[in-house]
């Protein structure tokens, strides 16, 4: 994806723990001791960087539907095709291309 700057894994971590931005820990848990309430709807993010290479991680963020049509993981870089998108979000992706790269870079550091 065309991006305007190099990936920033620290920003990636901030996005992952942000309940309004990344929303990741609503479903996932992981090595984030400062986050009190984590989800248990999805596998732990611990070790994600050993299980998947950056291309695989990026693809799952962009649209997990491509791997599992029934998945509950939201499509972070798809702006179209959702039903009744709320006005404020219409035509917008959950994360920008830069933010997808930031999160990918951060997840790659999660090695067990």
């Amino acid at each position, binding site marked *: 994806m065309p991006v305007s700057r190099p990936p920033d894994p620290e920003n990636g971590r901030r996005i992952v723990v942000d309940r309004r931005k990344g929303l990741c820990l609503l*479903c996932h848990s992981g090595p984030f001791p400062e986050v009190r*309430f984590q*989800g248990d709807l999805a596998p732990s993010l611990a070790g994600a960087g050993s299980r998947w290479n950056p291309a695989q991680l990026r693809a799952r963020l962009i649209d997990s*539907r491509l791997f599992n049509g029934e998945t*509950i993981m939201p499509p972070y870089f*798809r702006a179209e095709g959702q*039903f009744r998108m*709320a*006005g404020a979000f219409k035509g917008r992706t959950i994360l920008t291309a830069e933010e997808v790269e930031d999160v990918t870079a951060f997840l790659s550091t999660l090695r067990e």
Partner: protein
Amino acid sequence: MTGQTGRAFALAVFLLGPASADDIPANQRLSGYDMMGAEAQAMQRDDFANPAMLAVKEGEGLWKAAPAEGRPSCQSCHGDAAATMKGVAARYPAREASTGRVLDLPGRVQACQTERQGVAPVARDSTGLLALEAYLALQSRGLPLASPRARGLEDAASRGEALYRQRFGQLDLSCAQCHSQNWGRSLGGTRIPQAHPTGYPLFRMEWQAIGSLQRRLRNCMTGIRAEPFPAGAPEWIDLEIYLKERAAGMAMDAPAVRP
């Protein structure tokens, strides 16, 4: 049969089969009350501690009072609510025999206000309407929710089921994905309930107020960044009818308390 047609066939059978084939089995259904903590349960059980009972008191007053000078009160047509309104909330939404239209309970109250009392209807989700709803709901406390399909609302229930299974919003999630497939799990610390509408209207601690089922559904829709339907829209009523079909036979615990 090839693998492909075999799968297509299985899918067709599944889609035509009983509505709840892949949903929660009847004997494993739990209400929001069953799933909440002991403290909130105790608050709901004690009518002096349950904040929703304030709305019931207000509703009782509205039931008995003339809505305007010279206009009939609810009671002057319907009599003692404890007798005549028993079980009514448990079988709404319902089809009105004379007109064929399907009304939910607040819609019914509004229709009586315009057509029988000759006054302007109070708005959905206003304290006045919530109070009357709470008073009516109390008259069905402990009674089983009636099946809408068994009362001629099959079409509405099917439309409601399609909405329940439809992915919505920027997060692209369906009601079923949370409430049928992941109930009991922790969504960032909040336990996902099974979405049985047994307790409405109810006092929600997060709202610090009594609120309607539509308000609850609106919250879930905005949570997944979907555009909610307008207040009173037929889609909400279809969804409510399907939720009540899923919950048919479960006891009403309105006016309830929820975290």
